[in-house]
């Protein structure tokens, strides 16, 4: 292989020499002469290569091929969900002008990404019933963390109440996020039968020091939080903010949180046109009302409408930057700089393709398929699905009375099927229970196959 690398145009010896000549440098080492000798690394970095493109392709695809091929999409959710990504979305996010640009610090040459993100913010607002959304956070879990910190800055209070049935992962991120600010996170009990937030327990725990009451709708366990209106009223009675976490695929059929009292909405935008990719990149949603007290405390980049100075043409620009780290430094509302902009663009394209009708159909399709699976699985002997008596959206709990979850998962795996999330460690009180997820990508055939393999596993 030649010493000249295809990514390094000035690695051609003659070019390199000429450049050095022109600026009076006799060797590359001259340019590193200020590094003390004892710090100079004497070895060669032990990384294989250089490799040709063909070699890279063979090697990396070879690694990816080691991932098992499943017979149908995994029955897993919990914050990342299998959904169909329309081809137009992939086409748009692969456009070099979007993909290989950075934060639009020069708005005149970056109107494309600015308008795209303004549209994303706008579409999120329509979906969740809010007036302002930021341009993205890393994922749902960090969005909950930021929403809690934001609530605390607005209310100057330090307690956050969360459902005891929330994802342990999100809970862990939330705890890590708010600990340095001195916030406490307390769990509110659920109703044993329905799973819904226990309003009596909430009333007992909410007090004058509560900054926010947080619910997830649908919940981590997949049911619709029917107490949503009451929870909001209880929160507001003590002047706490009401924060609602959402799976946006539910919002074509479920009421927008803004219509049942939410002050801040967060959630996971991955299912809107972003592939699962082993859990990242994801898309943290954050939205609030048009209230200056809220907007000033919002973390992250926000795009606004403005005009050209000369001829008053409509244009877009990053705004309210005085909240952000590059201006406000240690007093910024958050340290976030790079975000998930391209995932936000994907979500915007996805929502544009869907429109209001598509989002309703999406929700109905998901619920119909999930309900079918839930019923079929629930009919199996020794199985209870779901364990809570509530309306469910796309996830539902499955309890195995006579068999261990890990054995079931293994049996399914050996048949090319990925079972739901085992809840045995996160929620040991639920016994041998898994959280299954069914979306529009799971056909009747997929579900029937799951049910028939499950049946064998249960009786085998």
């Amino acid at each position, binding site marked *: 292989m030649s010493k000249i690398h295809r990514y390094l145009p000035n690695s051609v010896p003659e*070019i390199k020499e000429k450049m*050095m000549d022109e*600026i009076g*440098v006799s060797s590359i080492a001259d*340019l590193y002469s200020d*590094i*003390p000798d004892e*710090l100079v*690394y004497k070895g060669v*970095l032990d990384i294989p*290569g250089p490799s040709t*493109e063909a070699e890279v392709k063979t*090697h990396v695809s070879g*690694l*990816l*091929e080691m*991932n098992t*091929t499943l017979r149908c999409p995994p029955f897993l959710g919990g914050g990342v969900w299998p959904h169909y990504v*329309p081809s137009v979305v992939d086409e748009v996010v692969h456009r*070099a002008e*979007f993909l*290989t*640009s*950075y*934060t639009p*610090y*020069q708005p005149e*040459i970056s109107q494309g990404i600015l308008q*795209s*993100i303004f*549209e994303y*913010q*706008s579409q999120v607002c329509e979906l969740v019933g809010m007036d302002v959304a930021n341009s993205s956070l*890393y994922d749902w879990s960090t969005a909950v963390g930021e929403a809690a910190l934001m609530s605390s800055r607005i209310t100057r209070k330090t307690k956050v109440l969360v459902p005891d049935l929330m994802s342990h*992962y999100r809970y862990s991120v939330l705890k890590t996020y708010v600990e*340095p600010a001195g916030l406490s996170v307390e769990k509110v009990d659920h109703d044993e039968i329905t799973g819904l937030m226990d309003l009596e327990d909430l009333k007992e725990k909410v007090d004058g020091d509560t900054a926010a009451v947080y619910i997830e*709708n649908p919940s981590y366990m997949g049911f619709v939080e*029917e107490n949503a209106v009451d929870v909001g009223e209880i929160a507001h009675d003590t002047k706490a903010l009401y924060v609602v976490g959402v799976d946006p695929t539910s919002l*074509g*059929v479920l009421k927008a949180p803004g219509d049942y009292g939410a002050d801040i909405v967060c959630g*996971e935008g991955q299912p809107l046109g972003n592939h699962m*990719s*082993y859990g*990242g990149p994801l898309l943290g949603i954050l939205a609030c009302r048009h209230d200056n007290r809220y907007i000033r405390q919002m973390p992250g980049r926000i795009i606004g409408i403005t*005009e050209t100075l*000369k*001829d008053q*043409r409509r244009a877009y620009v990053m705004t*309210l930057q005085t909240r952000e780290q590059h201006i406000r430094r240690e007093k910024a509302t958050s340290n976030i*700089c*790079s975000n*998930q902009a*391209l995932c936000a663009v994907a979500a915007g*394209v996805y929502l544009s*393709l869907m*429109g209001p009708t598509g989002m309703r159909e999406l929700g109905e399709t998901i*619920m119909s398929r999930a309900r*079918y699976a839930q019923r079929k699985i629930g009919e199996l002997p020794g199985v209870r699905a779901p364990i809570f008596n509530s*309306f469910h959206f796309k996830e539902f709990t499955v309890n195995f009375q006579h068999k261990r979850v890990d054995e079931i998962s293994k049996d399914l795996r050996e048949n090319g099927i990925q079972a739901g999330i085992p809840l045995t460690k996160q929620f040991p009180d639920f016994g041998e229970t898994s959280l299954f997820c069914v979306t529009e990508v799971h056909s*009747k055939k997929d579900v029937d196959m799951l049910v028939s393999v499950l049946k064998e596993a249960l009786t085998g």
Partner: protein
Amino acid sequence: MTIKFRQADWAEPLIFELSNKGRIGYQFPPLEPEINGSLDPENLVPESLQRREAPDLPELSELQVLRHYMHLSQMNYGVNSGLIYPLGSCTMKYNPIINEVLASHPKITGLHPMQDDETTQGILRLLHTLKGYFLEITGMEDATLQPAAGAHGEWTGIMLMRQYHRDNGELEKRTEIIIPDSAHGTNPASANMAGFKTVEILSNDSGTVDLDALTAAAGPQTAGLMLTNPNTLGVFENQITEVSEIVHDAGGLMYYDGANLNAIMGWCRPGDMGFDVIHSNLHKTFSTPHGGGGPGSGPVGVKELLADYLPVPDIVEDGGVYRLDWDKPKSIGKVHGFHGNVNVALKAYSYMVAMGGEGLKESSELSVLNANYVSRKLKDLKGYELTYDPEKPRKHEAVLSSGPMLSDTGVSALYVSKKLLDYGLHAPTTYFPLIVPEALMIEPTESEPVESLDAFIEAMTEINELAYENPVELLSAPHNTSVTKLDEVKAAHPKTICLSWRRFCQIMSDE
């Protein structure tokens, strides 16, 4: 200048304004009769939470949506489509296409993060190997790939320090993080978010850490120091060993902001400079695209003394079998819902393999050559100067000041950068670092052929001449971009602020 640039201007309406009732851009596979027939859609949602009013989303055909975004893309500027993108501290290098091809492989896009480890051996092995390469390049001893961006990595790193001091019973008294005045804005913001006060120390005349100022600032209250090396001036902190000693002697820890790692790969390693915890930006040094602002990835590397505190889960290998290890009782917990931006990590891995150890070193060398080539050819022009030891070699970036131009002609750095856009060149980072007046922070990266560097130099030279001969022409720039200069005050004013379509409609109906 021979370049003729004119960016597209479609005067593209908002997508909501293109909507026409009833159109759709996607169709769902129909429900099978057994599923459809047995369910009553009305009975799927509790009545109190049924959505009565459909969200006001746009209604368009597939082609209309596609065209809208194609138009918008043509009104944007990327590394792979532009000419040069010398945005200092952002390392806008070539984003190889093969990486995108591999990251679109269905065996990664269709993978769920909660799948059984038995089914994800390929990606686990890739991530585990990537971690090894990262440690090799940086000289650290353990790492996490979970942080989703550089600032997220900074915060994670400072949280590890926090846990370390807590574990040693010293968190109560170690309340301060020392940060030089040349630091990225994310450093003080991350330290603050991790619960520390920040103490800023001034740079010395060479633009590096002032050891006397550091000695005065360090003490029993010091939790650590955050430093970029080479720093944001592009100058190597040649007294880094002394800096580390002062901080360590005071009982503090050393944090390395890896934003500028692209300068030194294979030449020196933060682990050898005395740093205890570092982050690196895969979207800078390791060629993954910046996506208009993200996603990036900010893996964090540590020395052994902090390894127990790393986020869960870790990826471990046992006899050729890989698995996620959740058994880390001293861990700070999770910092991301799942395993971070895995798809970005995959691209960085592909890049590392494409370059190899020697290729990475040569990349750094050429990035440094390119930065010095540009800065040395510009620094003696009348309107520009290289502050802080102009004869000293820069690393991968150089901060030019257009201070002389401002005092001579009234043309500020803002107009220099706006005029660059007219040539079809992206502007450098402006007004940063804060310690350089009228800063133009130039980082060409090793991807740029000398021809692009010459085009940039020529444009900067012409702008210098214009400033002295016909400054009025500069003040109206840019002309060749999709839109001319914007009213940024109006965008932020409480009376005119408009952050969504919904708000836009309200404002229009009020008027």
